[in-house]
């Protein structure tokens, strides 16, 4: 009998434990973003200097109907009906898009970058097929959104958003059509209403411009992007924020601006960035300048290097001669004491990597399957801009300055990498705790991206400049801790990145924003 009482107890305890555990949820907490009214409406933003548009009025926007017109009154009535009562899904869409059009589309672009950031697998013949833009969902998927690719996609996205918003701001304050709820106070609004005129809609402008760029950059995601666009557009009606004509004018303007931005993208040299025929001449040149042993892929089968001619892609904030001028000084010779010292540092870390070194290496690795270092800095910029309650146009300016600097950093760094063709530490039997990128070592891409970003963000958010510089320094050092860069790769990368950032600052200071 005693035995059965005991068994009952044990089973009871076990069942109790299971019940407690079954009810414990596996959901994870992510930062929630809510809507805000901007700290400044930036009413003069229509005069800010655009990147591609010759002026903010280059693309015409039709005069809106008067608020007293029957057409507008009908639009208000329709809006009143659509926004009166929302389903749970509609409320969620309003809240999601309400936290910011630029903010969300930047986030979507980073997510696409992460999803497409996987190097192609080798096939049965031991070859790496090149992703095909005409067949984006085949294996390998197009694009391979590596760091240079992501820096470019995000730069064009941010520039298109910025130019489209500057144009939108020009027309908003030209036509001065107040928010629908200011004309008809009985309209239910679900988001904060500012004094920014709503024709054309900044949300529609951003959505259309973003979708145009992202469809070109991620051609396999057209249905996904169109669904996002549709939800974004409708959320403005559900929120009671825009009438239909605000949205139509915004979509037309966003599409037209983005088409102009895409015409630059089509001729910026990216089509030739993966010209593998150039590498033999690059290696020859580096050897003629004294390189004893050139970089070779450490993968089996040998993988062609990542975008060897990306250094020739068109820059944003300076010219081609500056790319050469910003090229780092020659790296240490492979048998020099400077080289040996920095190789020994890696050999020692490999033997005794501390957990803190591993943590830093992992935190900043942003490798395959991530949104890459440019994506990491876009995220930082978008979050800081959000915290500062930037208007849509000001957040777009921040991201355009940052985004163009990141793409310029990629171009300068890739030019340097393939000019010197310097071998990775793995050619000297060093392993890695983060995965090895497939291109020459000197200089460090992470260091160049991070210093450029910290420089630009320090200018826009001077009170946080020290934090950004520390982060850039840590991102740079993380590549030593991860065992894939010599210290001199990182030091020189930081220097070049800082210079790249300064050119973006010069542009920012001259863009008429007074910021």
């Amino acid at each position, binding site marked *: 009998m005693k*035995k059965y009482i*005991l*068994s009952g107890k*044990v*089973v009871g*305890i*076990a069942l109790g*434990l*299971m019940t407690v*555990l*079954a009810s*414990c949820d*596996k*959901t*994870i*907490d*992510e*930062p929630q973003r809510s809507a805000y009214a901007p700290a400044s409406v930036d009413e003069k933003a229509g005069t800010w200097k655009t990147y591609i548009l010759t002026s903010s009025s280059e693309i015409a926007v039709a005069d809106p109907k008067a608020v007293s017109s029957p057409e507008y009154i009908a639009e208000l009535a329709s809006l009143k009906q659509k926004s009166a009562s929302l389903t749970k899904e509609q409320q969620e869409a309003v809240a999601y898009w309400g936290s910011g059009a630029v903010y969300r589309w930047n*986030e979507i672009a*980073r*997510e696409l970058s*992460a*999803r497409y950031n*996987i*190097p*192609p*697998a*080798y096939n049965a013949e031991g070859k790496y097929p090149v992703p095909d833009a005409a067949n984006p969902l085949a*294996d*390998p*998927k197009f694009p391979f959104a590596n760091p240079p690719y992501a820096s470019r996609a995000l730069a064009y996205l941010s520039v298109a958003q910025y130019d489209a918003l500057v144009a939108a701001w020009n027309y908003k304050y030209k036509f001065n059509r107040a928010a629908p709820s200011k004309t008809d106070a009985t309209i239910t609004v679900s988001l904060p209403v500012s004094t920014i005129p709503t024709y054309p809609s900044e949300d529609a402008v951003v959505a259309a411009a973003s979708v145009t760029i992202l469809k070109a950059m991620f051609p396999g995601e057209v249905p996904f992007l169109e669904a996002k666009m549709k939800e974004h557009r409708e959320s403005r009606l559900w929120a009671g924020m825009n009438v239909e004509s605000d949205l139509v004018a915004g979509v037309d303007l966003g599409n037209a601006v983005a088409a102009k931005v895409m015409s630059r993208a089509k001729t910026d040299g990216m089509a030739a960035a993966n010209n593998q025929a150039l590498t033999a001449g690059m290696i020859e040149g580096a050897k003629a300048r004294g390189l004893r042993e050139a970089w070779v892929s*450490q*993968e*089996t*089968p040998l993988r062609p290097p990542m975008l060897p001619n990306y250094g020739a892609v068109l820059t944003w904030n300076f010219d081609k001669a500056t790319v050469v001028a910003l090229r780092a000084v020659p790296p240490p010779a492979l048998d020099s004491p400077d080289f040996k010292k920095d190789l020994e540092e890696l050999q020692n870390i*490999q033997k005794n*990597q501390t*957990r803190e070194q*591993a*943590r830093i290496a*992992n*935190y900043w*690795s*942003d490798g*395959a*399957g*991530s*949104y890459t270092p440019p994506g*990491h800095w876009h*995220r930082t910029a978008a979050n800081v801009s959000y915290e500062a309650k930037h208007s849509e146009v000001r957040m777009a300016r921040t991201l355009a300055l940052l985004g163009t600097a990141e793409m310029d950093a990629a171009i300068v760094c890739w030019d340097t990498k393939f000019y010197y063709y310097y071998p990775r530490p*793995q050619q000297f039997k*060093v*392993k*890695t*705790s*983060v*995965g*090895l990128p497939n291109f020459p070592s000197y200089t460090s891409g992470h260091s160049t991206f991070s210093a450029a970003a910290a420089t630009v963000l320090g200018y826009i958010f001077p009170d946080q400049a020290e934090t950004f510089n520390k982060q850039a320094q840590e991102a740079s050092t993380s590549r030593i801790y991860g*065992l894939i860069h010599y210290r001199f790769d990182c030091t020189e990368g930081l220097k070049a990145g800082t210079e790249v950032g300064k050119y973006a600052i010069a542009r920012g200071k001259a863009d008429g924003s007074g910021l």
Partner: protein
Amino acid sequence: MKNFIKLLVISAVLVTGEVKAQMPHDAIYMGKGQICVATMYGRSTWTEYWENSLKRSNSNIGTHTTQNVMVMPAIGIAKGLNVILSLPYVWTQTSAGNLLGQKGFQDLSGWLKYRVANTHGFSVHAVVGGSVPVGNYVPDFLPMSIGLQCRTVSGRLIANYKHPQTGIYVNAHGTYSWRSNIKVDRDAYQADDRVYNTREVSVPNAYDAGLRLGVLRKGWQAELWAERTSCTHGDYIRRHDMPFPTNNMQATTVGVYGKFQPKQIGVNARFGYVTDGRNVGQSTNLMVGVLYQFKLWKNQ
């Protein structure tokens, strides 16, 4: 340490009774006051793995090897009630490529095994287990990581029939394991085709089931076994990507087990081979152990 040596000396003097090493999935118990310490070495290797459902090799990994050394004491608390503990030290390496091997103490596990019913050779057993990570190892540098950093709680039921005369037995078990969320070093990662902006990763729960057929005689045991492990859900390794803790890892393994322990010292060995899987390596596993049984305290 001093006490431990003293314990060893005392136990060597006091040891009596029959010897029988045991595992968390079998129907074997230490008598009250008995302890059996298994010290085992394990080695698991694979050259092919399942990238989602695609079986492939990877010339930048070559052969992947995980080794471990584990101490596993089983303690008789009362008649039909045992505690089993284990703590492995694990290290990984590859024969090709340049991924840095990881090493360290993994997770401390404990099981409470209780014989619920026992009549005419039929027995039913309930096992409650739990594990906590001991080392601060990196959980998401797969396939080099030595563990996933989850805290787990498991519930297991075992049904066993042993023919009293011949010692032939059939044993079936089912387990459900709750696995905690984990924290990774990065503050954003991709899973389920989206980016999570947090350090926290949700690791799916897991279950396993096993079937065993064997002979258990005084001093030796021989067994054929098959096990199926799976997660309740999870994502998959994307084309040419690395594994991640959110993956739905599944494996069917078949193997043999044997033990020879005529007196207080014995040996055991287990061999397993993965026949089918998802998001795991097709591993061949070998484990060998030394068993040492002694009496910790006298029966009242």
